[in-house]
C-alpha cells in the first residue's frame, strides 16, 4: 500500500510545485495520476523515489516512512520512467542482469532471457548494446528490470510512451496481472483514455494540487475528458 500525506514541494525559486497532496493507493489497485505538463505529477514521483526532498509531508509504503527510512522505502519500489534509464554500453541482457543482481536476486541466464522475451524484446537484440535500441525496445528492457525487482509498489512515469500498439497492449495486460498478484501500481499519465481504461482510481492534478479523485465505477459512464477539462477550467 502506498500512502501520501500532506506532501508539498516548494522550489528554491519560490515555485510551489506540489501543494499538500494526500492520497492512498491500495494493493490490487492501479492508480492513474492525470494532469497536464507541470501539474506536479513528476514532482510527486520524484519525491516518492527520493530524487528530491519534500518541503513537507511524508510517504509511506507498507508501514515504512520516507522521512524515517528513505533507503528501505526505495527498496519497496520499482520505477519506470518515460525515458528509460539504462547503460548504453551494456546490452539489454547485461542491463537486466546488473539491476536484478543489485536487487539481491541471482537469476540464471534462462530466466533473464525468458523475461525479456516475455515483455516482447526481439531475441536477436537481447545481446546488442542499448545504444542500438529504439525507444520502445529500451522501454521493454526497463519494464523487465522493474518486473524482476519484484517489489510491492510500481511507480510508472508515462509508461506507455514509445511503445508500439502491440507492446502497449501486452504491457497493459502485464500490469493487470501484477495488480491481480497484489501489487500497487501508481502511474502518471496525460493519456486520458488509457487512464480511464486501466485505472481503478484516477486522480486529476493541476497546479500541484489533487483536484479530483474518481473511481472506475464513477467513471464508467462519464466522459473523463470533459471532467478533466472542467477541473482545469475551474482552477483557472
Amino acid at each position: 500500500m502506498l500512502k501520501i500525506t500532506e506532501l508539498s514541494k516548494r522550489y528554491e525559486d519560490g515555485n510551489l510545485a506540489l501543494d499538500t497532496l494526500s492520497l492512498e493507493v491500495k494493493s490490487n489497485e492501479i492508480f492513474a495520476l492525470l494532469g497536464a505538463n507541470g501539474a506536479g505529477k513528476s514532482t510527486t514521483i520524484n519525491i516518492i523515489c527520493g530524487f528530491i526532498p519534500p518541503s513537507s509531508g511524508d510517504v509511506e509504503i507498507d508501514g515504512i516512512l520516507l522521512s524515517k527510512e528513505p533507503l528501505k522505502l526505495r527498496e519497496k519500489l520499482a520505477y519506470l520512467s518515460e525515458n528509460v534509464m539504462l547503460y548504453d554500453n551494456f546490452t539489454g541482457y547485461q542491463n537486466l542482469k546488473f539491476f536484478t543482481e543489485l536487487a539481491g536476486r541471482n537469476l540464471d541466464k534462462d530466466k533473464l532471457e525468458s523475461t525479456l522475451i516475455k515483455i516482447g524484446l526481439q531475441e536477436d537484440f537481447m545481446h546488442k548494446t542499448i545504444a542500438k535500441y529504439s525507444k520502445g525496445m529500451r522501454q521493454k528492457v526497463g519494464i523487465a528490470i522493474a518486473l524482476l525487482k519484484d517489489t510491492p509498489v510500481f511507480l510508472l512515469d508515462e509508461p506507455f510512451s514509445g511503445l508500439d500498439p502491440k507492446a502497449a497492449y501486452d504491457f497493459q495486460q502485464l500490469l493487470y496481472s501484477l495488480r491481480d498478484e497484489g501489487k500497487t501500481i501508481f502511474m502518471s499519465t496525460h493519456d486520458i483514455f488509457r487512464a480511464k481504461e486501466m485505472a481503478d482510481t484516477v486522480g486529476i492534478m493541476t497546479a500541484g494540487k489533487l483536484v479530483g479523485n474518481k473511481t472506475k465505477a464513477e467513471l464508467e459512464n462519464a466522459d473523463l475528458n470533459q471532467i478533466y477539462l472542467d477541473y482545469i477550467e475551474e482552477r483557472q
Partner: protein
Amino acid sequence: MNSILFIKDLKLILKDLKFQIFFVILVILFILSAMSSSVAYKNLSNDFQADYKNHNSRVHDGYYTQMMNMLSDTKITVASQASPSLLFNNYNTYPDKISTSVMFYEPFFSNYNAEQNEVFSLNWYFIIGILSGFIMLIISFEAISSEKRFGTLRLLSIYGIKRQSIVWHKYLSYLLLYLIIIIPPALVSMLLFFILTGSWSMYFMVKFVLIILLSIPFASFFIILGILISMAKNYRNSIVLIVFIWLLFVIIIPQSAYIIAKQIYPLKTNIEYHNMKMDTFDKEYAEWGEKYDAAVYGNGNLFDGLRAKAVYASQEQKNIVVQKELEDSKKQTKLIQRVANLSPFNQLDEIAEIVFDRGYYLLQHQEETAKQTISQIKNLMIEQDSRDENSLHLYYSWASNDQYALQDNIVPFSKQLFNHPELLFVTNIKTDNAATKSIYILLKLLPIIILNILVFAIVALKIERLDIR
C-alpha cells in the same frame, strides 16, 4: 563494498572507446620508451666501461702515480654504472655521471634542473606521471555526468544505493583501472628493456613496483578531481575545467615557479660572474706580487715554486666566487622546485628522484661525495708536501699550466709517488638509507594526501546536493 556496482563500473570503462584508445597509446609509448632507453643505456654503459677501463689501465701503468699527470690531465670522476633507472630519466643527458676536478668543482647544475632542461623527451616519468594523470582525469570526468545523462543515477538510488556509495565504487574501479593501464604495459616495457640490453636488475624491479605504488595517491587525486568535475552543471564546463587544470599543473605552475624564482633570487650574467672571478683572482695575485716584491710576475725568479703557490692561492679565492655562483644557483633552483611542487606532477617527479637516486637528489650526494674526496686528496697532498720540503704536490696543477711557473732545470719538484690513485675514481655514491628516504618520501606525499582528502570531502558534500531529477 558492493561488488556488483564495482564490477559494473569496471566493465563500463573497459568497454569505453576512450579508455581503449588511451590504453593502446600507453602500450605504444611504454614500448617506445623501452626501445629508446635501451639504446641510451648501451651508449652510457659503453662510455662508463671505457672510462673505467681507461682509469684502471692508468692505475696499472702507474700513470696516476705521477703528480704532474694526475693533476694536470685527469679529473676526478664520480660515476655510477648506467642503470635501468635510465627509463625514468631524460636519456639524452648523462644523469648518472658527473665529472669534476680537484680544483674546479663545478657540477653541471643545469643538467640536473628539470625546469632548466628544455628538452621534452619521452620517459617513464612523463608516461606515469603526466600522461596517466591526464588519462585518469579524462576517464573520470564523465563518471557522474554520464550516469546522470543516462538517468541511471536515479535508477541506482531506487535500488537503495547511497549516492556516496556510487562515488566510492566509481573511485575504486578507476583506481584499479589505473593499475591495469600502467602495470602490464610497464612490465612489458621493462622486460623488453632487459631483453634488448641483456641486463637484469631485481633491485630496480623492486623500485619499479615501489614507484607504481607511490604514484597511486597522485592517480587517486586526478580520479577524484575528475569525479568532482563530472558533477559540473554541463559538459562544456567540465571540458573547460579539464583543460584549465591540465594547463595549470603542466604549464602555468612550473613556468610561474621559474619566473618567481628568477625575480626573488636573480642570478648575475655569465659575464658578470666571470668578471667577479677574474677580479678576485687578480686581486689576490697582485697581493702576492706586492708581498714578494713582484717576484711572481713575468718570467722572473720562481724560487721554490712561489709562482705556483700564488696561482693556487688566487685560484682558491676565485673558487669562493665559484661557490657563491653555485649557491645562488642552488637557491634559485630550490625555490623553483618549491613553487613547482604545487603541481602534483612535480611532486611525483621528486619522489621518483629519491626512489631512483637521480636528478637533484643524487646531485646533492654526488657533490658531497666529491667534496669529501677532494678534501681527502688535499690532506694527503699536504701531508706528503710536509714530509718533503721540495714537494709542490698541491700547487703543481696550476704551476704546470703556466709556462713561466715551472722550469724543469730550476724547480725542485718531488718525484715522490702519489700513494692513493684509487681515490680519483669514485664509483660508489652513498645515498640515504631506506628509513631516511622513507621519511623524505612521506613528507613529499603529505601535500597530495591532504589534497585527496580535501577533494574527497568536497565530492561527498556535492554529491548529496546534486540535482538528479
